[in-house]
């Protein structure tokens, strides 16, 4: 019981924090089910549910009643915390300090009923949530799954309604679904039920069909398997080809951004993931690629006026040259010394590009504009739906090179260096060449990304190349799974794509992003799609051999 109370208090603090940060109020504007439940309600409810659920799963009471009581207690405590906030807010003007402690928040929390009626109601709803959670816990696992995932789907549909509406509208006849499914703000009630049932049905079918299908597949002869796999690849490729047409303008834009980060991630993956050299200034090469493209092509400066394809090799070349040049001074540094020196390089490049001193050549604060788009025989890579193909080609090429490099002699040398520099050297690996190759390859990939980026935007500004990009790319490859090539793709989709989709929740985007980073690393330290070898190593370490630990 004590633990239930403790969790309730903790939950209450979280609840108050979420309210005071302004999330609750900001999210009330987004209705999930029109005029029935808003995202703000959902948030408060979800937090309560989460903590009650924690109580229920952590408690080991033998009796059912005890579980119920514990859950009730947690819910009640959390509601009491919120009531305290409201009472306190009525007494003192909290707003002098906490700008989001607005009267609107209080009236939201008391269900617009005023203090006398509102607070009992709040407490009651806390108890109710507790009871529901306990009841939910009693259900069989299958039913729980069938409830939870469709509910989550409804929530997602509610959050992404603008996007879905846009997609459906673009798909002709599906456009009529829109009116039935969505109102101007929020889903309609039949729409909600429909989505819930649809997802539940699909899930149920999947559960039933999964094992026979998988079993049948494993029983197939190898040759059929292979050809099936090839068909799969072919289908995947053809879907990739028509994707922008299917997804419409904005999702294509998101895809291009994700694609650029995949390119960057694949490059950094070589430096950090393969060779184990922690680079925090990777944005430098992105900037070099972009600026090389800009300087060589923009008529604004008028030095060269090349076209995209003529300038691209130079951008890559510059990437390689600078990769080596910046690589040499840091050859002897290790770990965090390397990290800070590279971070320094990133900043130096950004500052130089911004400086008044180099303004005649690099445009200074005003950037460089009028960078021409890429063209192939009259086909212009103008909007995101066209640039997508350029980036797709880049990603495929770089991905292929990455795959080949990983299994090459050089790739093995990189991994040896990652695991233990001294031993690698003792085994006859040329540290200098190996490290410089890593820097140069990484830089080249990044420069390609930068060059496409410049042509995509049509203008480059120094402000696009700050430290945050380097940090973001690092997060992408580590969240994806260090050293894993599919991991980079998954990581970029999760960390770049999702926040991009949620652009309208901008104020809380980074807050959620931060919390998710922490949670993800605690629950999945190996990343979303870990490299197989690496995964084995991690287990190895958990078995008690933590010798290798300090070196990873």
């Amino acid at each position, binding site marked *: 019981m004590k633990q239930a109370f403790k969790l309730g208090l903790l939950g209450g603090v979280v609840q108050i924090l979420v309210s005071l940060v302004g999330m609750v109020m900001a999210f009330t504007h987004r209705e999930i089910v029109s005029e029935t439940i808003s995202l703000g309600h959902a948030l408060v409810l979800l937090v309560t549910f989460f903590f009650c659920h924690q109580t229920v799963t952590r408690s080991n009471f033998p009796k059912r009643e005890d579980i119920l009581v514990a859950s009730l207690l947690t819910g009640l405590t959390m509601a009491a915390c919120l009531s305290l906030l409201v009472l306190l807010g009525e007494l003192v003007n909290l707003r002098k300090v906490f700008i989001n402690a607005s009267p609107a928040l209080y009236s939201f929390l008391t269900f617009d009923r005023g203090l006398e009626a509102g607070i009992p109601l709040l407490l009651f709803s806390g108890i109710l949530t507790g009871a529901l959670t306990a009841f939910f816990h009693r259900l069989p696992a299958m039913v729980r799954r069938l409830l939870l995932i469709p509910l989550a789907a409804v929530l997602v549909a509610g959050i992404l309604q603008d996007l879905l509406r846009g997609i459906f509208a673009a798909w002709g006849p599906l456009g009529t679904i829109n009116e039935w499914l969505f109102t101007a703000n929020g889903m309609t009630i039949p729409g909600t039920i429909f989505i819930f049932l649809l997802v539940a049905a699909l899930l149920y079918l999947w559960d039933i069909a999964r094992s026979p299908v998988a079993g049948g597949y494993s029983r197939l002869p190898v040759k059929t398997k292979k050809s099936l796999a090839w068909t799969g690849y072919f289908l995947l490729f053809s879907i990739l080809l028509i994707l922008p047409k299917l997804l419409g303008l904005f999702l294509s834009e998101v895809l291009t951004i994700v694609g650029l980060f995949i390119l960057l991630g694949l490059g950094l993956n070589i430096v950090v993931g393969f060779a184990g050299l922690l680079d925090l200034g990777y944005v430098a090469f992105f900037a070099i690629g972009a600026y090389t493209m800009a300087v060589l092509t923009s008529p604004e400066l008028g030095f060269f006026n090349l076209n995209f394809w003529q300038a691209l090799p130079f951008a890559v070349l510059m990437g390689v040259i600078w990769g080596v040049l910046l690589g040499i001074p*840091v050859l002897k*540094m290790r770990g965090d*010394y390397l990290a800070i020196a590279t971070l320094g390089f990133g*900043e130096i490049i950004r500052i130089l590009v911004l400086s008044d*001193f180099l303004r005649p050549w690099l445009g200074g604060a005003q950037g460089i504009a009028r960078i021409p788009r890429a063209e192939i025989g009259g086909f212009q890579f103008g909007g995101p739906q066209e640039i997508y193909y350029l980036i797709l080609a880049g990603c495929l090429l770089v991905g292929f090179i990455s795959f080949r490099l990983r299994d090459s002699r050089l790739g093995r040398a990189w991994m040896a260096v990652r695991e233990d520099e001294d031993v690698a050297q003792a085994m006859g690996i040329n540290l200098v060449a190996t490290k410089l190759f890593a820097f140069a390859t990484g830089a080249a990939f990044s420069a390609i990304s930068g060059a496409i980026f410049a042509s995509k935007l049509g203008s480059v500004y120094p402000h696009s190349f700050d430290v945050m990009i380097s940090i973001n790319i690092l997060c992408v490859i580590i969240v994806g799974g260090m050293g894993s090539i599919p991991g980079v793709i998954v990581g970029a989709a999760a960390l770049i794509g999702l926040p991009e989709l949620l652009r309208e929740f901008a104020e809380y985007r980074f*807050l959620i992003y*931060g919390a998710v*980073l922490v949670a993800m690393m605690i629950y999945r*330290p190996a990343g979303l799609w870990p490299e197989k070898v690496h995964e084995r190593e991690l287990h190895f370490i958990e078995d008690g051999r933590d010798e290798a630990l300090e070196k990873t």
Partner: protein
Amino acid sequence: MLKNWRERVTTTDIIMWLIGGTLLLMIIIGSVATISAGRYTAKHWLDFIVFGLAQGSIYALIAMGYTMVYGVLRMINFAHSEVFMSGPYTAYFVAAFLYGSGYLESHPIFSLFIVLLFSMGTSTAIAILLERIAYRPLRQAPRLVPLITAIGASFFLQYTFRGLYGSGFQAYPIVNILEGHFIIGGFRILRIQLVSILASGLLMAALFAFIQRTRIGKAIRAVSEDKETSALMGINVDRMIVTTFAIGGLAAGAAGLLYALMFKQVHFFMGFIPGIKAFTAAVLGGIGNIPGAMLGGIFLGLIESVGPSLFLDGLGIIAPYQLKDAIAFTVLVLILIFRPTGILGERLAVKKA
């Protein structure tokens, strides 16, 4: 002997020295040109040095937090900049209240002390929470993983404070006793600068003595040497790590208040740049090494203040203060070329870095 020397020096060494030498040469030429041009008098240089010392002492205080955490956990506590921000930002409301009630005017020293307590308290609380939530579950994970949680925690804290207190900034009230300047031997120094140099000097000395002399300090040092062995010797490793975070938080809270008093503005993003600078300072001095962090902080402050005028003005580069950070980082790289483990960081050299 000669043959041995030849074997040990490789082409890369020569290229590295060439790069380093060129940078050094440019710095020297720039300095000589600036000094011989004679635009700056000795008084100006002294001014630059004082400005640099004041800024550097604050960097040094923050850097201590980085370096101590690095010492015990071997990780970059990226969220330390938010520990630094949270203290003075929260304490602002106390300061504003005291100012509003007129108490700040009538009892300035006692009021400042209260504000300091709040600032240090909040920073320490945040630092401890951070350790408990974001780092403790990851003790056994590969080293880059806590780096990512640190980045995540940093985002989370920044935007939580933004949500709580707003995205604008708050201006610290003016404390009259800290305004104006002293004249020492015909040479002018601002009061607040003297106060911050003295205060951070004192605080650093106290912390250093704490680490060197007390039992807890010894235990912390033992943990940073070897966790397993110190656990065997009966040291509560977890508690020592928490203590380290708390000390780092205290120093950051104090540094934050000095910073706020010196520059008067607090906002949710204020920690980011000083954080990166302090981290640089810690590395410059040799990360994990406490005197190194102090030295690195002060050195960095000086470079930022003196560097642009001294190195670049003579080379005829316009708007040199825009390149301040670039100079600081170039000097950092230069030092790391010749001393790959920082100014005082020999001890850690290959084994742990």
